């Protein structure tokens, strides 16, 4: 049967792409060498950055993009790849198509993150950096009243004082691990979105991998938030604030982790290793934890299925949102159809904040 292109037999003891080096890693089914693998990873990211090419930005009018950095493997790797991308743009055209504003939310868990941030700044000095204390979530519109009861009124609007522990305390009063994890995620996202809006960032570049997006898809589905999925996992205009982008959406977590050690110099010392929690009782497991564990195993054996979940959810169409459309007071997703009548909260948030009646 004649093929469209001649099929050259490949030597499987060599890298599938360059056929010169020894392979060091198998990606999906291809054995690749270090160099080809790193090129594969950065190409996947750069391809998603099409809309930020130099030709789309007017000289002297920088497009500013916000990049939330948690010091996890994904966000640190994204920062690295984009830094290289920008360097490439400058080399080719004399300027770059965008600027990055790196945001780290400090949950006050220890001095390590401050030290890490210094190291990151040293390695990538060309970007702007900001640290946001997690306590700022309480100054977001409508959040403090929702997180009552135990919040004392003096914390309200007082951003400079010692309110840091109180946010975590407030979260701790929520009835289940799922509610805590869910609310935490929503508040962080709102905080970052709010920050990006206030700093004139036109988009937010989230470092979610394929695996992370698949986790998010199933977790949000299980929390009754199916209606807001298109805004959470696709590159669409957000109903509030800047547009969301997921440049790492075609890379598996394991590929990103491999990249972070294979790239030179490695990023290992810039990454905060997440302590993998041992499987505890279901009482303390959240839905997010369950999905994380589930996709960890699916990623190992069935990577294409993980990718398929993300591709599929990507096909969901976000309905158009009018400016005056009512939004949920907690997660800020449009309420249209996803909330009981006259509720100020969507179904998912009603579930997560028991005792709060819409």
């Amino acid at each position: 049967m004649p093929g469209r292109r001649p099929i050259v037999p490949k030597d499987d003891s060599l890298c599938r792409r360059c056929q010169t080096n020894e392979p060091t890693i198998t990606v999906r089914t291809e054995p690749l060498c270090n160099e080809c693998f790193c090129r594969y990873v950065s190409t996947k990211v750069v391809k998603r950055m099409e809309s930020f090419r130099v030709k789309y930005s007017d000289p002297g009018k920088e497009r500013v993009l916000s990049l939330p950095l948690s010091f996890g493997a994904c966000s640190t790797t994204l920062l690295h790849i984009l830094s290289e991308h920008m360097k490439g743009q400058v080399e080719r055209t004399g300027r770059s198509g965008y600027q990055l504003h790196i945001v780290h939310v400090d949950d006050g868990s220890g001095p390590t993150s401050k030290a890490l941030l210094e190291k990151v700044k040293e390695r990538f000095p060309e970007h702007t950096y900001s640290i946001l204390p997690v306590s700022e979530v309480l100054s977001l519109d409508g959040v403090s009243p929702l997180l009552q009861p135990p919040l004392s009124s003096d914390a309200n609007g007082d951003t400079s004082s010692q309110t840091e522990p109180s946010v975590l305390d407030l979260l701790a009063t929520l009835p289940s691990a799922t509610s805590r994890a869910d609310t935490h995620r929503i508040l962080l996202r709102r905080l970052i979105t709010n920050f990006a809006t206030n700093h004139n960032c036109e988009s937010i570049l989230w470092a979610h991998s394929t695996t992370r997006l698949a986790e998010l898809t199933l977790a949000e589905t299980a929390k009754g938030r199916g209606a807001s999925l298109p805004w959470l996992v696709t590159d669409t205009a957000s109903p509030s604030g800047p547009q969301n982008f997921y440049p790492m959406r075609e890379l598996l977590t394991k590929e990103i982790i491999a990249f972070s050690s294979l790239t030179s110099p490695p990023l290992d010392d810039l990454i905060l290793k997440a302590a993998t929690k041992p499987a505890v009782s279901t009482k303390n497991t959240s839905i997010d934890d369950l999905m994380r564990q589930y996709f960890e195993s699916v990623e190992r054996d069935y990577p294409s299925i993980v990718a398929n979940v993300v591709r599929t959810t990507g096909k969901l169409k976000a309905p158009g949102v009018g400016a005056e459309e009512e939004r949920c007071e907690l997660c800020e997703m449009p309420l249209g159809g996803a909330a009981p009548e006259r509720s100020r909260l969507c179904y998912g948030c009603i579930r997560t904040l028991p005792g709060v009646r819409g």
Partner: protein
Amino acid sequence: MPPHQCEICKITRAQVLRPKNGQRICSACFIALFESEVAVTITSTNLFQPGERVAIGASGGKDSTVLASVLKTLNDRHGWNLDLVLLSVDEGIQGYRDHSLEAVKRNSADLDLPLKIVSYEELYGWSMDQVVAQVGKKGNCTYCGVFRRQALDRGAAMLNVGHVVTGHNADDVAETVLMNLLRGDLPRLSRATSIITSTPSAAPPKDDGAVSFTNVKRSKPLMYAYEKEIVLYAHHKKLDYFSTECIYSPEAFRGSARTLIKNLERIRPESILDVVRSGVDMAKLVPGADGKCKGACGDSKAAGSTNAAEEEAEGGCGSSNTNSGGDSMVEMEKKLQQDERTEANGPETEVTLPANPKETVSIGVRHSHEAYSSLPPDDGIYGQNHEKNGASKATAVPIRTKQEKKSGRKPTRDAAAPKQRLGQCERCGYLSSQSVCKACVLLEGLNKARPRTGVEVGGGG
């Protein structure tokens, strides 16, 4: 610890801890509550017309037994005036279906509802035991699922019933939502979450008001009921059901989704209904017109119904088993990897679209009608000259022999660009977007291996 009082009537001792919300209530209150919740589901969705004839798909398992009992109770209580019958499919699985059919027969007597049993053997000439002997245990669920869908529709048509209700519960629906997310099947996801799925017939309704087997509605009145509560209801009502799962093994995909649902329920019991809700909401976001059928199907509703027959046909055994052959996660992974490679390298062979099949029809139209006894329903004599073994109309799926290869199909509908749209199988007349429906394709494969003398062509012209 002192015994808890029922939180509703405050009189009796609580006997039930509601799986759905942790409420402690007594047996009587639980039964009343369960029934009223099903009644709300039915009335709020206008599921039934007054006086409608409804067939309850009865397997003898807990779900359909509870469904039959609840419907009978509600029908009497609220005077819905429904004409209820039990409809069972005998797949022909020794040691499983024969026992469960006994349970159905006892239910039929207890509830005083008529019972109709249709068997694969009688419809297709193959019992599942024979199919398994032929194809092995792997992948046999495909046959069973495809055959069942048609069997229920054909059984309903024999009873002249246009509406079949099935016992799918909230856990089943939630499981299907997750499974279809994992499989990347959005159209099926959106169908799984609609309480009623109708397959508007390609054939116009008959003048005499008889129900055609291509025009039978399906609905799931228990889709908001928890599996655990169904078991509790059956227990407290002392219902007689058969609880063994099918002896032919379940496959990995649904199993994976099922485990996930059970774990979710353990973490947060409400999440089963939340998954269902998410599924319903996501179904609204599935692009319709510009989706798979590229606008050819018109509005999204039409697009949804196009694949109805085949989609549900693949639903397999609903709760306990899966699903079509490509469903094991291993196979799915392989297929996806292949797709990825094809995308990266370009297809190895140029594939050209075949000429529109509808244009190649002209020869042999008459001949094939007679040979396959698959007259288009508008010929008006459908069901009159091809009964098999004296069974009433629409029973026999004609079995095609080898030499009758050429197909005939009247170019009745507009022959636009090749597109997926609902038509009828040219052999048996069942709904299909292909020229030959899945059941006939499967049967052809089975019959090839059967000795020649064993084949009987249904109808002789």
